[in-house]
């Protein structure tokens, strides 16, 4: 997993609530057995017409936001299916940070496993950033994970919360499985006790 330290870029405004993972990446693209290559189909049904042409007024098709690295969206972002294809598609497109008033649990988790930083902020702060994002290519934001700040295009900053352990893993680009395997002795011990106390578990 790539480290997440400081990210500077344009933010795409997507003022829609309850953006579900079916919208992020529709089912026909879940047939892949790879993690890569999904960026071109991110938001597929909103981004392309039935015959595959770009929908001109969709934000990611507009020149100002084609290179967006940040997404600002409505509440309950990422609800629905657990498909990790959703963060894979964001990452493959080049988006490494999503800012919204709230996130669905599974999607939120999945982001951290892929070097994407989801930032939950109060609605009024998201509204400010949404206005910034609408300004387009000349309005870059800088996300500093170590400092836990978002620097707005006008120079002002907004602070955000993040779980300390997740922050650490993201800053260092740590592999979760490797970390857990360091606790193999504790897992062995737990299993031995479980075999005694609940033999039906196996």
């Amino acid at each position, binding site marked *: 997993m790539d480290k997440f330290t400081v990210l500077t870029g344009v933010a795409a405004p997507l*003022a*829609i*609530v*309850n953006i*579900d993972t*079916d*919208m992020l990446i*529709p*089912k*026909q693209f*879940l*047939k*892949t*057995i*790879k*993690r890569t290559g999904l960026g071109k189909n991110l938001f597929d*049904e909103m981004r392309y017409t*039935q015959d595959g042409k770009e929908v001109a007024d969709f934000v990611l098709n507009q020149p100002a936001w084609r290179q967006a690295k940040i997404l600002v969206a*409505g*509440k*309950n972002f990422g*609800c*629905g*299916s*657990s*498909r*990790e294809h959703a*963060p894979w598609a964001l990452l493959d497109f080049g988006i490494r940070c999503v800012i919204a008033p*709230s*996130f*669905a*649990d*599974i999607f939120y*988790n*999945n982001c951290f*496993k*892929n070097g994407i930083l989801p930032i939950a902020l109060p609605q009024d702060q998201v509204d400010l950033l949404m206005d910034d994002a609408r300004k387009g290519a000349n309005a870059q934001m800088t996300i500093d994970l170590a400092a836990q700040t978002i620097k707005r295009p006008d120079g002002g900053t907004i602070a955000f919360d993040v*779980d*300390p*352990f997740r922050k650490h893993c993201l800053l260092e680009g740590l592999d*979760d*499985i490797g*970390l*857990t*395997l360091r*606790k*193999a002795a*504790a*897992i062995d011990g*737990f*299993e031995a006790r*479980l075999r005694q106390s*609940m*033999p*039906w*578990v*196996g």
Partner: protein
Amino acid sequence: MAKPRTLFEKIWDAHLVDVQEDGTCLLYIDRHLVHEVTSPQAFEGLKVAGRKVRRPELVLAVADHNVPTTDRSKGIADPESRIQVETLEANCRDFGVPYFPMDDIRQGVVHIVGPEQGFTLPGATIVCGDSHTSTHGAFGALAFGIGTSEVEHVLATQTLVQKPAKAMLIRVDGALPAGVGAKDIVLAVVGRIGTAGGTGFVVEFAGEAIRALSMEGRMTVCNMTIEAGARAGLIAPDETTFAYLAGRPQAPKGATWEAAVSYWKTLKTDEGAHFDAEVVIDAASLVPMVTWGTSPEDVLPITASVPSPADFADENKRSAVERSLDYMGLTPGTPLREVKIDRVFIGSCTNGRIEDLRAAAALAKGRKVAAGVGAMVVPGSGLVKEQAEAEGLREIFLEAGFEWREPGCSMCLAMNADRLEPGERCASTSNRNFEGRQGRGGRTHLVGPEMAVAAAVTGRLADVRELLK
């Protein structure tokens, strides 16, 4: 005396392998269900890192999302779907994971197969790379959906890194009126608390109306808990649970069964335990429900009319409603009972069980699917299909003009060939009415199985209670 604990806390505490100083927990996972869509990258990750599956005997794999529901003797026509299923087969072979192939009678939707086999047990921690894993909470198991990276983590370590959730109690008091079922309970819950109302919570369902439900009904309720954003749904195990599990192929036997049941009987929330939120619903006030929009929270009694954006105070919700109504092709003020439908889908991990099919067949018997409506029944598993056929349900459905298919996820998410055409409107017993969920441009109205039959035979969204008179 020990601090009173919720059912969730009891299961959580029993599975803690390690707790870090910052409160991050390592949770042991007892059961891991795997399907073809969310696992290939996880197995690939293991291969690249040279890792094994730690406890393959605690894993059960089955293909469900991509499988055709028509004749399977020639395999899967779509090359991408075929490769994904073949990849699962190869991975299970390489890693020694138990697998039910497509031609095995035990094949079906993963959340129907687990309980049916007795793989799902009370008090267990159960995960699957699928959000509807919440289904298994009906047994008093802590069951939740995970992403593919976490699937890989569980395969490699049999554990998950987790933070504790908050606890919510949803109590459904009293008895359900005739024509109102488990699906209506859970749709009403999602309507009440919203699709994000349960975010960060594990929800325990209790109350007389929940106790009175069969295991199938309880699974329907827990299945859609994720639609309220909750991490998991839970129902304390009781005699109904034990009776369902007794004798299932993978359920414990003999003295082990006795020991398990006596432990399972302790799995209930203690008197005085703390819930962070509580919701009370009066079962007697419930009526058959139907969704009108593109989020499961967009739900109303069948007796209501299509809402207007102006009915919503919140500006964000108002624009979402405008978008929904436009997508759904609905005009504010139209009575829901006047909305004509083109298709009907009965099946899925929400309503593809034998009891659902019995209820649907009882209503379909002696009636005919309306002209111009395409209706299909997709049993949740090969065993459900076999049971339904033994009971004569297949004939009833065929006689009424429904198609009778092979088991799989089918038109719940349209990854196989079963899908809506743009603009087609469907009464569906599945769980999500998102834009494009059942096919690009398709319009989904979520209902229970009897309401789906009512829609099929009238050609419009209909109040099942009128047919029951």
